[in-house]
């Protein structure tokens, strides 16, 4: 699928909505930036990501309905503790190890972000979207990616990746968010972007 300016605009719109929703939720500025939107071979992209051995906490969500996406949010395990403190309105530094609160924090952020993205399609483009409960994994970054890719990799050799990083103001927390539309949704996105 061709990645054109209009498609980038739709992706940016989704990311901006997600960014606003997250900032409201944690009451601290969160700036999400789209790093890249590209087509990737599943073996190459997972090979690249498997080279990393970081410990992360990730949450993935399936968006279904008129447009289907796979959504992944992940953060370094240490930084997930800071996120838990922000969400629980505790002094930053209270949480020191990964536990059920950090797991819930990552789960909740993934919910907020994916709902922000879904709202672009439901309110701006009148499309129906369902959102699955988040699945949270605390593991090697490569393993989190593999499980995220698994159901797509079964049917496709190539995927469209929308890759973002974001920063939480004053806390120096770097988070990552990936969105992969399924092959049928790429056609819907193409239609939307052509009508803009």
């Amino acid at each position, binding site marked *: 699928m061709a990645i054109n300016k209009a498609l980038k605009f739709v992706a940016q719109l989704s990311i901006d909505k997600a960014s606003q929703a997250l900032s409201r939720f944690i009451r601290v500025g969160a700036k999400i930036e789209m790093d890249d939107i590209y087509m990737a071979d599943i*073996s190459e992209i997972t090979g690249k990501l498997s080279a990393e*051995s970081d410990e992360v906490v990730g949450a993935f969500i399936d968006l279904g309905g008129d447009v289907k996406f796979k959504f992944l949010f992940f953060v370094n395990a240490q930084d997930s503790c800071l996120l838990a403190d922000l969400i629980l309105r505790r002094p930053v530094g209270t949480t020191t190890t990964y536990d059920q609160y950090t797991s819930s924090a990552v789960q909740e952020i993934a919910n907020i972000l994916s709902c922000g993205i879904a709202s672009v399609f439901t309110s701006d483009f009148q499309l129906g979207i369902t959102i699955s409960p988040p699945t949270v994994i605390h*593991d090697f970054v490569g393993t989190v990616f*593999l499980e995220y890719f*698994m159901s797509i990799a079964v049917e496709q050799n190539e995927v469209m990746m929308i890759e973002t990083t974001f920063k939480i103001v004053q806390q120096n927390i770097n988070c990552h968010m990936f969105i992969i539309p399924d092959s049928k949704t790429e056609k819907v996105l193409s239609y939307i972007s052509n009508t803009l």
Partner: protein
Amino acid sequence: MNSQEIVVGIADYKVAKAPVVLSTNLGSCIAVCLYSSLHKAGSMLHIILPDSSSGINKDGIKTAKFADTGIPEMFNKLQQVCGVGINDCVAKLFGGAKILQQVSNNIGQANEIAARAVLKQLGIRVVAAKTGGEKGYRVKFDLITGKVQCQIFGEEIMEY
């Protein structure tokens, strides 16, 4: 001697001669490592599903996704590129964890069973395996020694 590291992504395999380290991360996928100490050569395949007969195998889909098509293809490549015969070759298996607890079927276990069956059919002996569990794996396969360093998330590195 410094070895070059080659990372193997899902639905892919790499064939190489020493000094090379083949590495990958695994969840429910299985890494099938083949090695010939005679040739100091080996290969690693990263499969995601047990067999290609599930109807998913459409035209153009990568055969390395499946145990039944990926393992024979990888062995043929190892034979062509490095001259490794069946009798020179041994296999090691890693991965196959059940990462997603809410998913009822255990795809990792099915992958391991299928990989073992294909290797048996080809006449390749499985000399080591570390499979199962609920956490991810990180494996590094050194083609100088034939040893595989395997780390399960949260645990110490073990050698097989």
